[in-house]
C-alpha cells in the first residue's frame, strides 16, 4: 500500500525561470517487506510493503504505536536487518548490495544504544572514528570540535559509567555525527530522557536539518512530531497509513490534534485500537 507523497518532484516558478529541482532523495524505500519467524507466534510480517522517501534537509517522523514496525523499518534502513523483499536505497546506495557503504553515510542512534562503561567519551569517539576510517589528525580535530560544541570538555576523560543520562546521551549523539553523515536515523531518541535532555535532542535535530542532513526518526511522542517534522508518516501493523505535512494530515482526517489524526487513520484502515 503506497503512501501519498507530499512534495512533487518539480516546482515551477511563476516567472518561468528554470524549475528548481527539489533536493534529491536521501532515503528511498519501495515495497519493503520483512518477515521473520517468531517461535511463539509463528510467521510474523513486521513490514508489509512499505514505501518511504525522505529528502536532504528534511525531518521525517515515523509515528506509530509499539509493534507497528518503526524499529524494523529503521533497522532495515540502517542495514542491521535484510529486507525479505523490496528495495531500499540510502544516499543512492542499495542497502542489500553494499551495506558497508551505506553505514558510512548514516548516523544511527537508538534508545537502547549503550556506551562502553569502561571507556571515556574521548576514547569512545576515537574508537568509532577509527572504525569509520577517519585519519588520526583529522579525528583529533573533529573530536575536539564535538567536545566543544556539546560542552563535554569537563568529563571527556571520565569513564562513561560515571556519567549522567544526559551526558551519556551527548556522547551518543557525538558518536553518531562524528563522521558527518548526510543521513541520520534515530530510533526513539528521546526515550527515557527528561525535559532538559529531550529539548537538547530536539535542538540538535533542528540544527542538523539546517545543515542539510536528512533526518528520519521514529517516536510515539506526538508532541515532538508536531514540533519537529516536515513530514509525518503514520505507521500501523507494518503499513504506512498516511504521509504528509501536519496540515495535510489535518485536512485529510479533519482532526486538529495528532492523536486524533492517528486514531482516525487507524479506524479508517479497519484496525482495532487494541494493538501490541
Amino acid at each position, binding site marked *: 500500500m503506497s503512501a501519498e507523497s507530499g512534495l512533487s518532484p518539480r516546482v515551477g516558478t511563476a516567472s518561468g525561470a528554470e524549475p528548481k529541482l527539489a533536493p534529491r532523495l536521501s532515503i528511498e524505500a519501495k515495497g519493503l517487506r520483512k518477515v521473520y519467524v517468531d517461535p*511463539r507466534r509463528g510467521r510474523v510480517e513486521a513490514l508489509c510493503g512499505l514505501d518511504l522517501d525522505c529528502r536532504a534537509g528534511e525531518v521525517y517522523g515515523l509515528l506509530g504505536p509499539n509493534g507497528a514496525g518503526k524499529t524494523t523499518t529503521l533497522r532495515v534502513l540502517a542495514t542491521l536487518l535484510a529486507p525479505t523483499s523490496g528495495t531500499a536505497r540510502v544516499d543512492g546506495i542499495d542497502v542489500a548490495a553494499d551495506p558497508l557503504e551505506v553505514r558510512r553515510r548514516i548516523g544511527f542512534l537508538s534508545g537502547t544504544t549503550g556506551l562502553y562503561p569502561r571507556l571515556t567519551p574521548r576514547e569512545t569517539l576515537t574508537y568509532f572514528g577509527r572504525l569509520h576510517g577517519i585519519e588520526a589528525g583529522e579525528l583529533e580535530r573533529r573530536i575536539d570540535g564535538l567536545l566543544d560544541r556539546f560542552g563535554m570538555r569537563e568529563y571527556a576523560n571520565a569513564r562513561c559509567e560515571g556519567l549522567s543520562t544526559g551526558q551519556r546521551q551527548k556522547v551518543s549523539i557525538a558518536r553518531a555525527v562524528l563522521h558527518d553523515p548526510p543521513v541520520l536515523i534515530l530510533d526513539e531518541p528521546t526515550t527515557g530522557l527528561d525535559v532538559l535532555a529531550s529539548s537538547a535532542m530536539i535542538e540538535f535535530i533542528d540544527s542538523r536539518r539546517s545543515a542539510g542532513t536528512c533526518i528520519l526518526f521514529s517516536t510515539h511522542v506526538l508532541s515532538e512530531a508536531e514540533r519537529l517534522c516536515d513530514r509525518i508518516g503514520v505507521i500501523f501493523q507494518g503499513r504506512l497509513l498516511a504521509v504528509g505535512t501536519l496540515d495535510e494530515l489535518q485536512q485529510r482526517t479533519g482532526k486538529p490534534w495528532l492523536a486524533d489524526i492517528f486514531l482516525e487513520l487507524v479506524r479508517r484502515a479497519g484496525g482495532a485500537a487494541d494493538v501490541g
Partner: protein
Amino acid sequence: MSARPGVSAFRAILAAELLLLLRDRRALMLAVVLPTLLYPLIFMGQRWLQSTSRRSLEERRVHVACDLSALDASARLVELLEEEHPIDVVAVDASGLEPAPAAITPEERAEVARLAGGPSGVVLLARARAGDPPVALQLYFDGTNDEAAQARRRVDRALDRFQVERRAELVRRRVGSDPAQGLAITAVDVASPEDAAGSRLGRIFPILAVIVLLSGGSYVALSAFAGEREAGTLETLLVQPAPAGSLVAAKFTAVLVAGSLTLLLNAASVLVSLHAGLFALPGGAGSSSAIFVDLGRLLAAGFFFFPAAVLLCALLCLAVGRARTFREGQFTLLPLMLVCLVPAGIASQDVDLDWLLATIPLAGPSLAVRDALRGHLDLPVATWMLVANTAWAGLALGQLARTLDTERLVQNEGSEEESSQRAVQSRYALRWGWVAVFLVYLVGGTLQAWDPIWGVALTLWVLLPPLALFSARGTARRAKDTIARTLHLVRPRVTHAVGAVLLAPALAVLAKTVFDWQRQVLPLPSRVAQGDLLQDIAELPLAMRLFLLAISPAICEELFFRGAVLGGLRRDLGAVRCLAWQALIFGAAHGSIYRFVPTAILGMVLTAVVLRSGSLWPAILLHATYNGLLIVGVDSPWIVWLSGVGLILLALDRKRRRAG
C-alpha cells in the same frame, strides 16, 4: 579511508576489546592474579599439612603388648621393637586369645583391649603350631584407631628387620653365603631427570590446559558477545562500517589472547612451584625434590598445543555467541568444558600417538604435548597432527563467522524462559527416549540375565511397542495429527525403500571396521568379545536367529526410536540436532560402551533415511538387512558397491511422502 578497511577495523576492535579487558579489574583478578598466587599457596599449605600430620603421628607414643614365649630369639625382637621409639613394649600373657578366629566376638575384643592397655594399643602373639614353620605370629589391633595403625606400622618395620636378620643367619649357618645375594636386583632408571619430569607433567598438562584456557577465555567471550548484546553496545558496533567478519575475528582474537595469557601465567606459576620443590608431580617414584622441565620442551609443547587452543577458543565463542544474556552464556560453559576434557584426557592413558589419533581434535594435540614433554616425539605424526588440527580449527572459525551474522546478533527478542518454552515436542520425545533407555537397561537387562532368548524377545516386543504408542499419542495430540503419521507409518516410495535396503552392506562393513579400530583404543574384555549373549542364541536355527536378532529389533526399535521419538524431535529441531540426539539415545539404549559408537552411527543413518523418505518402512528394512548381514556375514566385497546404488537412489529421489 585506508585501503584495507577490514584489517584496520579488526585492529581497532581488537585494541578496544583488550583495553576493556585490562580495565575490568574483577576479570583480571579472577582470571589472572588469583590463580597465579593460588598455586604456590595451595601447594605450600598442602605440604605443611602433610608434614605436620606425619610428624605428629611419628611422635606419638604407641603401646605394644607382646606374648613371645613361643618364639626363640624373642629378646632380639623386643630389642628391635624398642628401637621404634617412642614405644612401650610390655610382656603379657595372651594365651587366652583364639588363634585365627573366623569372627571376633565382643569378649575377644574386650580381652585384646585389656591386654593392650586400651583401644590404641596392639597385641603381638607368638603361637606354637604343629608342623613347619613351628611358630606363627599374630597381631591384634583396632583398624579404626590412628595410633593403633601407627603401632602396627612400627611393629611391621621391626618384624621386617627381624626376619631379614634371621634369614641371613639361617642361610649362613646352612649354606655358607647367601646364594640369592648375587641375584639381587638393583633398578637403574636410564631415563634422564628431564624425561622423567616431562613424562609426569605431560600426563596432566593437557587437562589442566583445557580447563585454564576455557576459564581464562570465558570471561572475555561472555562480555564480548552476550555481555555486549545485553548492554546494547553490540548494535552500535554493527552499524559501523566494519565488516562483520572483522568484528567476529577481532573478538575471537581477544578471547584467544586472554585465554593464552591466563594459560601461560598459570603454567608459569605451576612450574615455579615445581622448581621451588613446593610439590611433587603425581605418578613419580622420585622424591619431591626440585624438578625443572627444560624450556625447549615447554616451547615445543606450547607449539603443538596451539591449534587446540585456537579450536577451544572458537568453540567457546560459538557456545557463548548465541547467548542473549550473560547468564545464559554462563550455562553453556560447564557442558563445553566437560565435552572438551574427554578427548584431552587421553594423554593420561597409556595410548601411543598414531596417525589416526593425531587426526582427532584435542586428542591429537594432547598426545603430542605429552610426547614433546617426555622427549619422545614422533615428528612425522606430529606434523600431520598439526595439519589436521589446524584444519579443524579453521572449520570452527569458519562456522563462527557464518553463525554470528549481523541479523542473528541483532535479534534480541525473548529471554531464556521463552527459548525453553518452545521445543515442547522435542523435549517430550526426549523424555520418553531417556525413559526407554532406563527401562531397557534395567528391565531388559534383568530379563536377559534370566533367559537370553526370551529376554531379548520380551524386551523388544513387550517393552518397546507400548512406549512407542504412548509417546506417539502425546506427540500426535499436541500436533493435532494421527498416531500413524507421527510414527511415520506411511507408504514409502519404492526407490527410497530399495535404496535403504541397499545401504546395508556398506553399513555392515563400516560397523566391522569401526569395531576393529575401536578395539585399539578401547580393548574389549574377552567376555564381551565372545558375546556371551549370542552364545546361547547361536545354537538356534538360522530362521529363528534372524527373527530374534534382525527382524524383531528392526520393527520394535524403529517403531520407538525413529517413529515415536523422531516424530517428536522433528517438529522442533533441525536435521542436525535430530541426528545428534538419535545417535546419543540409540547408542545409550544398547547399554554397552563397546557398542556405543557403531550403534550411534547406525542410529544416525536410520534417522537420515526416515527424514529423507518421510516413512518408517525403509528404515525398518535397512535395519533388518543390516542386522541380518551381521549375523550371516558379509564376505564378498562387491556387495558393498550395491550401497553406492542405494545412496544414489536415496539422494536423487527428492520427493517423499508428506509425513505431516
